């Protein structure tokens, strides 16, 4: 059932807030979004209803109205409409003027269907931090599909142990990354923050919040300022990226 913004009195079956363990975000391609629509109007990816989806695609066209910005985006697998309500956009017109057709963007939002056609209501539409994000996103879609196949239909919490055992491509460790990125992170606390985010965002599709990182690091004797600087450095180097908001991070590699 789709709850439209205007359906104040009509929502007979108001959806209860999902428990935390069911609030997950998965990376998908437009093709997966299109195939997710079921005959009863649900959107299921790998058998589950994702709380949020992440898409990396190229803008084909933009149409801005007073209440929303509508994008048609494509990623080589298909074309889909993405709607971003303007009261959700932090910088309002600024976002509309910096985005243009033929630019790749990262979209985070809710997958929905109407009359059998999939679309996305976006919370965030931003330029990709690097064109390599396209490649990374496609590989991530493949990775998540493999994980879903190995997990079967079990709850996502159970996949944490599984993820540590699945050998998918080269296993990058904190030490290897330090060798590649020696110029930017020689201090011990930098490595602690990096390792903490890596370990705690792997089994979690949304990632880990800034507050949680701060709490854990300060209890280990790292100052709040040092943690903040480390997070900025890691994000700037592309080793972590923000997911549902500016204070939630996931390890990139």
């Amino acid at each position, binding site marked *: 059932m789709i709850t439209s913004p205007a359906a104040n009195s009509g929502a007979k079956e108001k959806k209860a807030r999902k428990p935390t363990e069911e609030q997950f975000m998965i990376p998908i*391609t*437009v*093709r*997966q979004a299109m195939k997710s629509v079921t005959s009863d109007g649900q959107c299921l990816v790998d058998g589950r209803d994702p709380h949020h989806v992440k898409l990396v695609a*190229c803008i*084909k066209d933009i149409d801005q109205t007073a209440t929303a910005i509508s994008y048609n985006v*494509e*990623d*080589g*697998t*298909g*074309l*889909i409409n993405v709607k971003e309500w303007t009261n959700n956009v932090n910088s309002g017109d600024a976002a509309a003027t910096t985005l243009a057709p*033929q*630019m*790749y963007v990262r979209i985070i939002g809710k997958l929905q269907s109407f009359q059998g056609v999939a679309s996305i209501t976006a919370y965030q539409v931003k330029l990709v931090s*690097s*064109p*390599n994000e396209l*490649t990374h996103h*496609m*590989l991530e*879609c*493949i990775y998540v*599909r493999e994980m879903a196949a190995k997990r079967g239909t079990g709850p996502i919490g159970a996949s944490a142990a599984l993820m540590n055992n699945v050998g998918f491509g080269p296993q990058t460790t904190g030490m290897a990354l330090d060798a590649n990125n020696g110029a930017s992170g020689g201090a011990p606390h930098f490595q602690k923050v990096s390792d903490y985010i890596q370990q705690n965002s792997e089994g979690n599709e949304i990632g880990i919040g800034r507050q949680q990182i701060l709490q854990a690091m300060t209890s280990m004797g790292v100052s709040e300022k040092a943690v903040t600087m480390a997070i900025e450095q890691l994000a700037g180097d592309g080793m972590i990226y923000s997911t549902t908001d500016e204070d939630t991070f996931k390890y990139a590699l």
Partner: protein
Amino acid sequence: MTPTTPEQEGGFYPRLNAAGIEEGRFDGMIVSVVGKQISNDGQVLVLEDGAGGQMKVTSPDTAQNTQYVEIVGACQEGSIQHFVTRQLGDEFDMDTYNQMINLQNGKYQELFYQPDFQK
């Protein structure tokens, strides 16, 4: 009676490298190629893919591009007729992209392909 080719859906275009173009499977279709610019004389743009292969794009965009570009166009007899150019900056990882499209065009077509074109 010759079988008709399914119509390509909007937004669906296979991502190819030089080997994929040469294979000929997508001749006549809209495809995407990504590569490093080697030369552009206004008539033909030559791109190098992640495996070192070369791809030719006819009637290219003559505007200043970044070192790495994505070209979407029609695959015709071994070259690509230019439609659009997308800038991919100067630090694009071609090797990983090449491995990704091999997976995309191989084992994981289900996630990426219009069903009519899946092998």
